[in-house]
């Protein structure tokens, strides 16, 4: 089947239904799970952002809805937004105006399909998951531009223009920074990249060499900008453009933009965690070894589930920590001007990303030599060949044959 899924739930349904129905039910169950994560992330983080913003500004934030801490504030907001009138301005191009929020929402939801939640917990297994993710994230901008253009309002048009200029520029350093851990790992498969970082936290690609350490911060800056979060929220810019691209929107259509925004904030944070911060690995050597043992334990499917659940909790905590930083930054720094945003990207971030890329490529040569015959591998990356299904070649002449043997039939069981 083209869309493989976690085998256990599929096997569970197989016992009760015919294989076609079991497969369909499994797909529906997994899709529902992803939809729930996609829906709950904005739900939780809109409340958290209001709370954090309140504390940063020496206020309390929401306090009443749902008893303590106002934790049901997002539900109240949602109910309010559903009841609001769905307005389309007279000057708007009504079809595009109605479609734009869906484009944003669908684009950021589609990114969840390729995002691993834990070892093996990924909706679509792909050995180029990172590439597909970057491709899908570049779709979101179309919805924003369409929203800005079709509203028939100057503020919206300005917002859309700024978003287009910003996104077209920031995609370049984003892709360059994402390539850097890929050059170390030798794969675009996000699950494999995370698997390579198990063990103590020094195995994380963040601590692989000085270049990756800086890359993480460059990536995070660029990712914040690509989610159009402050200080890069030029497309909205409440104090200049009323609401930017969403000035004319109301009700649910307006809220779709925010679901998309918070979901893609989660996606870029989770990708940062997977690429640099060890993914679902805890960073504590013995604990990771225990979790891997638990995952591969024979006989008990429950142990595997428990291990994956713990992995998901670890990955989500890392992603949420980064989300917290994004919120923290938003309420701390003032907004940049559009020319400053472009200068930051074109004059600083892109050259930095290029230099870092070169540095990461040259680092192994400097550290471990380039002598022929003996291929010195990085001590942290010993399990790399095993995980990627490649065999270490003894002599350079055999490399081609060894590579040739690699991809097929090794994992036949």
């Amino acid at each position, binding site marked *: 089947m083209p869309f493989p899924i976690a085998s256990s739930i599929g096997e569970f349904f197989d016992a009760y239904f015919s294989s076609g129905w079991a497969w369909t039910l499994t797909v529906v169950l997994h899709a529902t799970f992803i939809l729930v994560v996609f829906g709950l992330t904005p739900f939780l983080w809109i409340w958290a952002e209001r709370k954090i913003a309140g504390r940063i500004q020496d206020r309390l934030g929401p306090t009443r809805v749902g008893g303590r801490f106002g934790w049901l504030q997002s539900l109240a907001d949602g109910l309010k937004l559903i009841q609001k009138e769905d307005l389309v301005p007279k000057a708007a*191009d009504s079809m595009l105006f109605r479609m734009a929020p869906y484009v944003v929402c669908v684009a950021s939801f589609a990114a969840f399909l390729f995002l691993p939640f834990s070892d093996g917990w990924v909706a679509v297994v*792909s*050995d180029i998951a990172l590439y597909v993710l970057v491709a899908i994230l570049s779709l979101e901008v179309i919805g924003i531009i369409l929203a800005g*253009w079709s509203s028939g309002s100057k503020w919206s048009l300005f917002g859309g*223009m700024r978003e287009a200029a910003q996104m077209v520029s920031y995609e370049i350093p984003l892709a360059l920074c994402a390539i850097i851990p890929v050059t170390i790992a030798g794969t675009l498969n996000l699950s494999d990249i995370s698997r390579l970082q198990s063990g103590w936290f020094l195995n994380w690609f963040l601590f692989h060499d000085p270049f990756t350490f800086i890359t993480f911060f460059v990536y995070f800056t660029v990712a914040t900008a690509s989610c159009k979060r402050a200080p890069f929220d030029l497309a909205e810019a409440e104090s200049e453009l009323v609401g930017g691209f969403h000035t004319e929107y109301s009700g649910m259509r307006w809220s779709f933009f925010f679901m998309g925004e918070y979901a893609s904030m989660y996606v870029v944070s989770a990708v940062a965690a997977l690429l640099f911060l060890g993914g679902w690995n805890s960073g504590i050597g013995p604990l990771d070894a225990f979790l891997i043992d638990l995952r591969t334990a024979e006989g008990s499917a429950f142990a595997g589930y428990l291990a994956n659940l713990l992995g998901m909790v670890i990955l989500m905590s890392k992603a949420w920590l980064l989300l917290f930083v994004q919120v923290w930054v938003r309420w701390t720094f003032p907004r940049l001007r559009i020319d400053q945003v472009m200068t930051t990207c074109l004059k600083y971030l892109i050259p930095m990303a290029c230099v870092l890329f070169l540095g990461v490529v040259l680092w192994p040569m400097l550290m471990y030599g380039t002598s022929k015959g003996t291929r010195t591998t990085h001590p942290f990356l010993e399990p790399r060949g095993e995980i990627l299904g490649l065999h270490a070649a003894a002599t350079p002449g055999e490399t081609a044959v060894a590579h040739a043997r690699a991809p097929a039939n090794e994992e036949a069981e």
Partner: protein
Amino acid sequence: MTLETLLFYIFGLAACIGAVAVVVTQNVVRMAFWLIVSLGSVAALYFLLDADFVAATQIIIYVGGTLVLLIFGIMLTASGPYQKIKSSPGEVFMGAGIGVLLLVLLVGTVGAIDWSAASRAVAGPDFRPTTGEGYNPAGQGNTTRPIGMALLGPRPDKDLGKPEGSKLSSGYLFPFEIVSIHLLVVLIGAAYLARAKRRVQKVGPDSRE
């Protein structure tokens, strides 16, 4: 009918509707939107074929790149609020004629091929559809490694069973590098043509006159 067949029909229909709508619509930005629908559906068809790399490239280049630039260009250059394009009857006639001829050609070609024999010929005697039992590389998401390997030089898909010391097939590293250098030349040329022209100020005794 399996789920894949259903999805194939849905996305195939969406691709066709999008393509027809691009031709029929007169509003330029709506055309761009229908192009997104059409190209996105084609990308979905590639995903259904387990061609993840082609699908992602389709999205990143056509949908995420070209169309964003298209809409951006329209927003920068449009004179009125909603730019319209109208074709003259002659253009419509010419376009329709060429389109019908192309359709006849494509349908004729597709109909003339024995597809199951062709797929056996391409994939070898042990061809197995990806929905088969047991391990299949495509089902594990391993869809891109042969292309990546071929672009780097080694051809695991051809050299797999060969005895040691035999001649290995060549990959596509050389054409790949030539294409990338061509693209670099195009980039530099575009930057040269688009750069701001500074007036050369003549400084010297003859400029005073």
